[in-house]
């Protein structure tokens, strides 16, 4: 069963990658795109497949993996299956700063928008951590409540930006609030990689402790886990994952919530077994979401956050109804 699921995961991931590169688009038909991959494509198709689609696919995969990993680790950290990267307000903080940048910066300086998103996410992280610090250190409940507070502040900031921004810039601001990979460049992917790989390494290191933490902090402490230190590291890792994702792709919902759920059903809750599979599944889901976002109203495109939510919600409802 698990072996089959592993193989299936590999197949789905490959299929998502193939769809991302080969699905029909205005720059190259599937046949032309295949020629490009086989090394005999026309110049125009090569630009479309390797120049436009490949970075876009890579960004979608990286962001999907980051979101699913952030969701899985936050769920274990807070010992609740309800946690997702949005819950702690980190994405909200990043999105608020990015939309504000889009509303205020000269268009020529839009290259700085991801940096603003990062700064916003970092600020939100600090705010959540500061608010959650109680006399006994940050507890699960305090973290969740602090996240709700930061999220509320971020929503207000975003709405204010949307209400006050010049009409043409609304399009740029809305693109951030609903997520998009359309501006993907190789540079963006390279920038994002450390925000994916360093937290992933940290989570791998703390995987066993995180598995203990998922069954309650007191029993984890009794089993030798330094709860405060692990919590701080995992929180920072999740924050970096969310911050990177939101800075380069805007707000993309439900990947971080649904993917860990589905994977937990198949592979169980042990972090080291679950996390990398959740990351791959999140990558595949997001890449597929982006393909759909491009295909459904081609050559127009939907915000990818809309697609992932549309895929995720019914799925989540089904999971919820089925759960014992």
């Amino acid at each position, binding site marked *: 069963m698990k072996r089959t699921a592993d193989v299936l995961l590999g197949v789905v991931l490959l299929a998502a990658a193939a769809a991302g590169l080969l699905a029909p688009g205005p720059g190259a038909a599937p046949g032309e795109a295949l020629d490009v991959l086989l090394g005999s494509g026309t110049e125009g198709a090569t630009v479309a497949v390797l120049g436009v689609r490949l970075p876009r696919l890579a960004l979608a995969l990286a962001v999907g993996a980051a979101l699913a990993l952030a969701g899985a680790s936050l769920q274990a950290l807070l*010992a609740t299956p309800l946690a997702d990267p949005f819950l702690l307000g980190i994405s909200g903080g990043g999105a608020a700063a990015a939309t504000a940048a889009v509303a205020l910066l000269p268009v020529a300086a839009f290259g700085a928008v991801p940096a603003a998103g990062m700064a916003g996410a970092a600020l939100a992280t600090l705010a959540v951590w500061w608010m959650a610090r109680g006399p006994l250190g940050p507890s699960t409940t305090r973290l969740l409540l602090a996240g709700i507070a930061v999220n509320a502040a971020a929503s207000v900031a975003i709405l204010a930006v949307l209400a006050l921004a010049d009409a043409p810039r609304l399009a740029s601001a809305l693109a951030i609030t609903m997520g998009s990979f359309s501006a993907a460049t190789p540079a963006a992917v390279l920038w994002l990689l450390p925000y994916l790989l360093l937290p992933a390494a940290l989570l791998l290191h703390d995987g*066993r402790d995180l598995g203990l933490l*998922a*069954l309650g902090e007191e029993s984890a402490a009794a*089993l030798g886990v330094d709860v405060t230190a692990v919590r701080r590291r995992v929180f920072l890792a999740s924050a970096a994952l969310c911050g990177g994702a939101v800075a380069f792709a805007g707000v993309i919902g439900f990947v971080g919530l649904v993917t860990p759920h589905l994977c937990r059903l198949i592979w169980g809750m042990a972090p080291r077994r679950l996390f990398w599979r959740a990351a791959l599944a999140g990558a595949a889901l997001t890449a597929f979401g982006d393909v759909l976002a491009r295909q459904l109203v081609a050559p127009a495109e939907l915000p990818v956050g809309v697609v992932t939510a549309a895929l995720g919600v019914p799925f989540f409802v089904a999971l919820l109804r089925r759960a014992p």
Partner: protein
Amino acid sequence: MSAPTGPRAEQGRGLLRASGASGGYGGRPVVECADLEVGPGTCIALIGPNGAGKSTLLRMLAGVLPTSAGSVELLGKSLRQWRRRDVARHVAFVAQQVHFAFPVTVREVVEQGRAPHLGAWRPAGPADRRAVEAALERVGLDGAASRPVQCLSSGERQRVLLARALASEPRVLLLDEPAASLDVAHQLELVELLRRLHTEGAGSVVVVHDWNLAARLADRVVVLACGRVRAAGNPGDVLTPPLFLDVFGVRTETLLAGDGRPVFVPRIAAHPPMSDGR
């Protein structure tokens, strides 16, 4: 790693010792100035009315809750000087109930008991697997190892948590009301199991509400009320109707069982039990 495990330390000081230990939550002391010592092969029953501080004292002994005054020493060295993971190798703590947020099987939970020995990276070896199997067998769950914990009764869950504690092969077991959800047969099995563990050299501190169970189980009884130790000693000396009336506010009749052991039967509540409110 650097735990002083020499025989001298053990014989001289016992395994786990609280001296003048106080502790609580958010600056409010719940346990004040408690003394308690667990030696190898001995069982201490911790009894007292609700809110007396039994669970708090147990948490302090496990090192999960820091002491605000006094100290808890493991093998002669203050818990503050131990690394958490090394404490967990020697001391296993079983809380009353654990909330299982995620679907997880019995074996997965019991395997967690090996975590203190494995650290962050070492994979489980044959010795670890043996310990897990032995623990499952001891609590009678070897047949249910692959069942999801969510589907178990609360009594079975309590045994799962006990098995997790046993899997870490501790020298001291701290059990918070381990018998609370067990049926009579399993309560007797628990007593047998703890007896065997004691003959193997483990010490234990067990919070119990059932005086008769405490009498059967323990070498020593410590009575806690209002966060302070009211009495401590052999069960026969400590568990007496005057104490029950004093601490629990209950008049008690003492019967004699067939084997000559006393059986306490609470008759009537004379006054409310001792608590902070009084």
